[in-house]
């Protein structure tokens, strides 16, 4: 049974695209057929994070408007065979997408893929609403920071009211992915901790991705972190999150605060080791 999953957050810059790429790659690494759709029409970036920016010929808008066939627009990842990307248009705006058009594309993708991951644009406007519209499951990406938590709360409200599943009275799985988590700062009371955020947002936790240089490096080189540095702490968090998405029950271990001399001297660098 194919699953449509939206990766959303409301606020921009919290790690939606990075998380879409990493979760998508992690699921594909476990043998699942995965397609990533970039819904950020006008400001596409998933192609860049995936290292496919020079291979884009046709995009989502072309397919929705019938200018190109779906197989022509899909870009197959060169590293993992079971991973594909449907890029967003860079020259059009969000009004170029229609609900019926998106529905047709998703239905067609369901025939070939196990996971259809919709990378939502920031905001709560049409683009974000279309990205979540047909979702069976949602990953809400949140940073432990007040504005991100507030916007996530708003997005959770929209998932409960504006999605097709919500309108039909069906359940939509919601998962919280806490990114850019800095355990040391949370322990010192400088940053909201896992418990605070979970208590406020009240949806189940999918994983905690520590703030990490490896994630930035992966974006720089255009390779999902789970492929670029599979042994890094961030990769492990994404790989485990992907296993939880597939139904495995794994305990979530809160990243430990490192108290060693090295971490005191080098701060976040040691936390990424």
């Amino acid at each position, binding site marked *: 049974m194919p699953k449509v999953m939206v990766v959303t957050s409301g606020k921009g810059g919290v790690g939606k695209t990075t998380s879409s790429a990493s979760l998508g790659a992690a699921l594909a690494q476990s043998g699942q057929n995965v397609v990533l759709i970039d819904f950020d029409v006008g400001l596409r970036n998933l192609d860049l994070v995936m290292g496919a920016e020079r291979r884009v010929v046709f995009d989502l808008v072309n397919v929705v408007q019938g200018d190109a066939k779906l197989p022509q627009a899909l870009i197959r990842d060169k590293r993992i065979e079971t991973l594909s990307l449907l890029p967003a248009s860079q020259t059009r705006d969000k009004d170029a997408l229609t609900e019926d058009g998106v529905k047709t594309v998703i239905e067609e993708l369901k025939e070939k893929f196990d996971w259809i991951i919709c990378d939502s644009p920031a905001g709560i406007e049409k683009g974000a609403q279309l990205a979540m519209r047909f979702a069976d499951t949602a990953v809400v990406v949140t940073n432990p*920071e*007040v504005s991100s*938590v*507030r916007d996530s*709360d*708003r997005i959770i*409200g929209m998932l409960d009211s504006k999605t097709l599943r919500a309108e039909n009275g069906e359940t939509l799985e919601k998962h919280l992915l806490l990114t850019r988590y800095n355990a040391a700062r*949370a322990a*010192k*009371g*400088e*940053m*909201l*901790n896992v418990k*605070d955020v979970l*208590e*406020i947002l009240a949806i189940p936790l999918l994983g905690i991705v520590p703030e990490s240089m490896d994630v930035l490096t992966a974006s720089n080189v255009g390779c999902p972190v789970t492929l670029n540095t599979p042994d890094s702490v961030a990769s492990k968090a994404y790989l485990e999150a992907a296993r939880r998405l597939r139904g495995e029950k794994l305990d979530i271990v809160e990243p430990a605060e490192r108290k060693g001399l090295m971490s005191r001297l080098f701060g976040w660098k040691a936390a990424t080791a």
Partner: protein
Amino acid sequence: MSIFSFFTRSRSAPVARDRLQILLAHERTLAGQSDLVAVLREEILTVIAKHVSIDRDKVNVKLECGNNVSTLEVNVEVMDQPKAAS
């Protein structure tokens, strides 16, 4: 004073948590209500307008949520000449 601030300056997370909890409690009620009041307003007016003529601009619908009791207040100004009885 400076020693006191040295020990307390970094513990801002509890403040963030408390502010968020209060704000979101408020915003969640608002989100639920704004739609509800609009829907109630429309449906109530449709029913009233069936029987008496009303000025849609002179209608006031207010929903107040208290701790124990919530009240719905509807103020409708009825126009002078009644509709011809059917």
